[in-house]
């Protein structure tokens, strides 16, 4: 068996080992990689900057725990950005599986950095079933959809919520999603109520939303961990996404190298030629 044939039939466990090394090494030996800013991430930053200081905003945790690595840095950075502008933040989630818990944990930890008080500076509404009904219903009354916050405290007992009735009192929405709920925020809340919004999503989900960015229904877009890293750089607080860029870079390069090697093996090892001959 020739070299190329052996290469073509390489045991997949070697590939798994290479991926594991490519993921682990950059965390042990971190490198300060230059990260350029895409126009879409700059638009997110500019849109949040344009929100008047002290406004009330939504940060929506529409992602599952499986995509924490990509989505949580976006949510964390958005909260930092809003708290820095003294905005009042209302978090909620349309994901029953962990959404409210992640919103609670992330908002409380970021609020602690800025000395923000629960109920006054931020509130977590939690989760309610049926995102289309939730989004539609909040257009009339947020309290009728969420009578209590995530911990069961009536909204009427929270000072922040006394000033908020419906979308008319919400200046901006920062949607972090790994699924199609972002489509409904656009079609229901942006299109029908005119609330400006941006979206942070997984790298796999981002291509879909370029159409909404072009239509200005999303004022900006963060795509995957790279998008989160760009946003961290823009607000001047490098965190988990920037740290993850080394591993992501190496794995991408490894996959590209494997694709090239696989094709070389395919053509030079004879399989490609045999397939062409029929």
């Amino acid at each position: 068996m020739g070299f190329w044939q052996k290469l073509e039939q390489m045991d997949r466990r070697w590939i798994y080992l290479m991926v594991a090394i490519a993921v682990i090494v950059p965390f042990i030996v971190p490198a300060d990689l230059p990260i350029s800013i895409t126009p879409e991430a700059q638009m997110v930053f500019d849109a949040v900057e344009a929100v008047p200081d002290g406004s009330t905003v939504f940060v929506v945790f529409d992602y599952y725990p499986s995509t924490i690595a990509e989505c949580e840095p976006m949510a964390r950075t958005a909260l930092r950005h809003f708290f820095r502008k003294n905005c009042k933040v209302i978090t909620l989630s349309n994901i029953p599986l962990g959404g409210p818990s992640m919103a609670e944990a992330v908002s409380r930890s970021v609020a602690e950095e800025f000395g923000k008080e629960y109920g006054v500076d931020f509130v977590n509404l939690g989760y309610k079933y049926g995102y289309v009904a939730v989004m539609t219903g909040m257009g009339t009354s947020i309290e009728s959809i969420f009578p209590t916050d995530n911990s069961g405290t009536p909204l009427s007992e929270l000072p922040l919520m006394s000033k908020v009735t419906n979308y008319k009192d919400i200046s901006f929405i920062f949607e972090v999603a790994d699924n199609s709920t972002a489509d409904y925020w656009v079609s229901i809340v942006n299109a029908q109520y005119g609330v400006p919004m941006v979206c942070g999503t997984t790298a796999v989900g981002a291509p879909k939303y370029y159409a909404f960015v072009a239509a200005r229904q999303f004022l900006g877009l963060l795509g995957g961990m790279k998008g989160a890293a760009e946003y961290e750089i823009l607000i001047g607080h490098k965190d988990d996404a920037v740290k993850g860029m080394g591993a992501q870079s190496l794995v991408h390069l490894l996959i590209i190298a494997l694709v090239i090697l696989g094709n070389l093996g395919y053509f030079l090892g004879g399989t490609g030629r045999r397939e062409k001959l029929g």
Partner: protein
Amino acid sequence: MRTTIPIIVAFLSGLVLALAPFFREDNWFGGLKQELTEWLIIVGGFTLLLGVVSITRVNWTAVTRRKEGWGYKVLTLVAVFAMAIPSVLSPEWSTLFGRADGSIYDWLFVNLQSPMMATMFATLAFYIASAAYRAFRARSVEATILLITATLVMLWRVPMGEWILERLPGDIPYLLNTYIMGGANMAVQRGIIIGAALGAASMSLRIILGIERTYMGKG
């Protein structure tokens, strides 16, 4: 009767929600829409309960009949109830109940569920690398175009790759963002989004008018 009543409910509910955006929210019609929306959330909550009942029944039957893999089904049942029961009990009885920091639910979520879900998703990286090596072949002109485009986009989406692209002639990152993501990709995505929206609108209309009855288990 078992068909007629659901069709009437679907027709009236659908009609109210479809017409609602054309009316003011502070009049009786807006109030009706809001009432229906709240009912939708309440009824939807019961479907979650139905899910728990269903998963319990299916798994319990498999356990009692000692079907293949019944041990895993025991684990499923234990996991469902270990998460669900403490989370619905009142935190006033004990700090271990409810969903706040320090509760059983929170501990299980942070230390088990969340890492397990992230691990399952992260495992994809290994499979993608292996699948790319074995299956991503330049077998035809179309496959070659896809392969080259995917390679360039993958390079562009990471700092090391971008560094490489910036050293090549021409502003490749700009071209990729403008013509691939903001051009070809966006055109295709628009087609899919508009097509899916038209499909959803037509399906909604069929349900409202009682033409589509598969949701009642009828053809």
